């Protein structure tokens, strides 16, 4: 009796599966009608998503995260299957070295031809040949200050963020690797140091600074600077451009001691449901006009050489803006983040915890 009902159940289930599978075969060759995108918060023009949906007929399911550190466990645990994810270069490196990424077939991404030289040059350091990643935005980490509250030209280097006159006016990033850029560059160490002694020194510097800091935030820093809750803050170049648009008195500097240059890239996780849809998305994002929309909305430097020309044409006053088109010598002074291995990650994390708990 029991056996028979089990058989019935199996039969019913397999019928159901066939029924569900049928319409897919009839339509276009497509693994899924959905595209699951995992991106930073406020990092895309919503119109771009609508345009993509309209053109491809796919439904985009869009989720956001705040930091790479928050996104990584979601991808590595495989608990949610995303088709395409936006990751910073050091996380790209960590993801592909640990085998969580699928290779991107660049034949399906013809617009890759637009990717500019700086992006290709630095890609060699974290993803040789762009096998696993395609750049989306890039920029530097620097300091933004309000020239109504601090005289213009006063701020040129990281160590200015340790001046006591700026008590309660300083915002620092609440993001592990980013916040350590400041003390490590000040000390003249690599931002990819694996030395515990160097990290000790850097942590001590940050602990010393903590009393002066107003708060540690990530995306919110720009809002605090704009509403004058703080006068000076560590910031991504793109966020700085956003602030300058709202308030012309905001001044961005890339500190003399050097800084971090970063690349946010699209990657395809190994457990993606549809590699094809993901590649459609990546190619779409590399179209010059979509790159321009992204620039207008997000305001970061674009990896797209055709988009660069469009920006220079549309906004000739931005050509000299170091936050947007930094000089080659400035870029050469910068360093990208590398994936440093689980043990070093843990060491960083322990130091960071010590700083935060202090």
């Amino acid at each position, binding site marked *: 009796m029991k056996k028979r009902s089990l058989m019935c159940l199996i039969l019913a289930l397999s019928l159901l599966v066939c029924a569900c599978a049928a319409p897919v075969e009839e339509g276009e060759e497509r693994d899924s009608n959905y595209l699951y995108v995992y991106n930073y918060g406020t990092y895309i023009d919503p119109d771009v998503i609508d345009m993509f949906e309209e053109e491809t007929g796919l439904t985009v399911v869009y989720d956001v995260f705040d*930091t790479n*550190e*928050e996104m*990584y*466990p979601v991808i*590595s645990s495989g608990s949610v299957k995303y088709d395409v994810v936006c990751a910073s270069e050091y996380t790209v490196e960590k993801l592909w070295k640990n085998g969580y990424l699928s290779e991107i077939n660049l034949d399906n991404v013809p617009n890759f031809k637009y990717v500019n030289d700086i992006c290709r040059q630095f890609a060699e350091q974290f993803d040789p040949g762009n096998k696993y990643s395609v750049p989306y935005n890039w920029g530097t980490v620097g300091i933004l200050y309000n020239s109504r509250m601090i005289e213009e030209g006063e701020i040129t280097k990281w160590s200015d963020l340790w001046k006591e006159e700026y008590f*309660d006016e300083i915002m620092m990033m*609440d993001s*592990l690797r980013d916040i350590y850029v400041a003390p490590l560059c000040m000390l003249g160490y690599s931002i990819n140091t694996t030395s515990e002694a160097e990290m000790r020194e850097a942590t001590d510097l940050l602990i010393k600074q*903590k009393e002066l*800091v*107003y*708060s*540690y*935030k990530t995306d919110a820093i720009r809002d605090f600077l704009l*509403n*004058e*809750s*703080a006068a000076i803050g560590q910031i991504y170049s793109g966020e700085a451009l956003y602030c300058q648009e709202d308030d012309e008195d905001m001044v961005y500097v890339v500190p003399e001691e050097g800084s971090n240059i970063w690349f946010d890239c699209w990657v395809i996780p190994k457990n993606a449901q549809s590699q094809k849809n993901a590649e459609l998305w990546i190619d779409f994002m590399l179209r010059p006009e979509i790159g321009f929309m992204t620039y207008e909305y997000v305001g970061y430097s674009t990896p797209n050489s055709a988009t660069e020309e469009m920006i220079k044409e549309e906004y000739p006053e931005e050509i000299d803006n170091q936050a947007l088109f930094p000089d080659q010598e400035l870029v050469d002074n910068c360093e990208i983040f590398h994936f440093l291995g689980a043990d070093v*990650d*843990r060491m960083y*994390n*322990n130091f*960071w*915890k*010590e700083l*935060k*708990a*202090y």
Partner: protein
Amino acid sequence: MNKRSFTAPYIIWIIGGTLIPLAMMFYYGLTDESGTWTLQNILAIFEPGNLRALWKSLLYSAACTVVCLLLSYPIALILRNVKRAKGVIVFIFLLPMWVNFLLRTMAWQVLLEKGGVINGILSWIGLPKARLINTPGAIIMGMVYDFLPFMLLPINNVLSKVPNSLTEAAYDLGASKAQVITKVLLPLSVPGIVSGITMVFVPALTTFVISNMLGGGKILLIGNIIEQEFTVGDNWNLGAGLSIVMMIFILVSMAFIAKFDKKGEGLA
């Protein structure tokens, strides 16, 4: 259908919502990344950073509990004597609880911010701006605001059940007002006080949202440490291990309730 089958939803709920997560927490907490058994995640509580966060949590939640108690007890005493509109007064205290507590905490952010409402008023009347947010005081303030009803309700429950004849008898026998409070009402309200204390202390001890929002990322409580181990630190084993340590505190509090509030009066 026998009666027992009605318990099925409850049993499924308990298994899925309590037993399985607990078992997973203990598994993660007692193993390392390779899956071998270890106690190091539990002992990690003694690392300086974690210990400091635990100490801060204990300190802040103790302060919050004391403030809640000092605010609630007099109110409960007053409520006991209110004849009319008592329901309305209790209702007013409960009203804020209908708003999601994240929103209420965000409201405090707006009030305490450097360019916020309170500082706006201060500078309007010509006083210098004060550093309000991102301080221990702001966090304790937020905790008190969020958890006050959990202290008031059990005390109010117990106190309003004390028959008037008892206090009248005490007055008849010559007791002063103060004596009635300290010798009659206070001893009788101990169960309510104890359950109020635990219901405030335990959630305050483990909060991480309030400290995140009102501490500006500068003040790390043990709840933040655990949260960060799961998110930023990507070390679920350590996070689970520290959660087990926190469970010990919660179990101690429950034992505390069981000792003083045998009939469960305060929880009614």
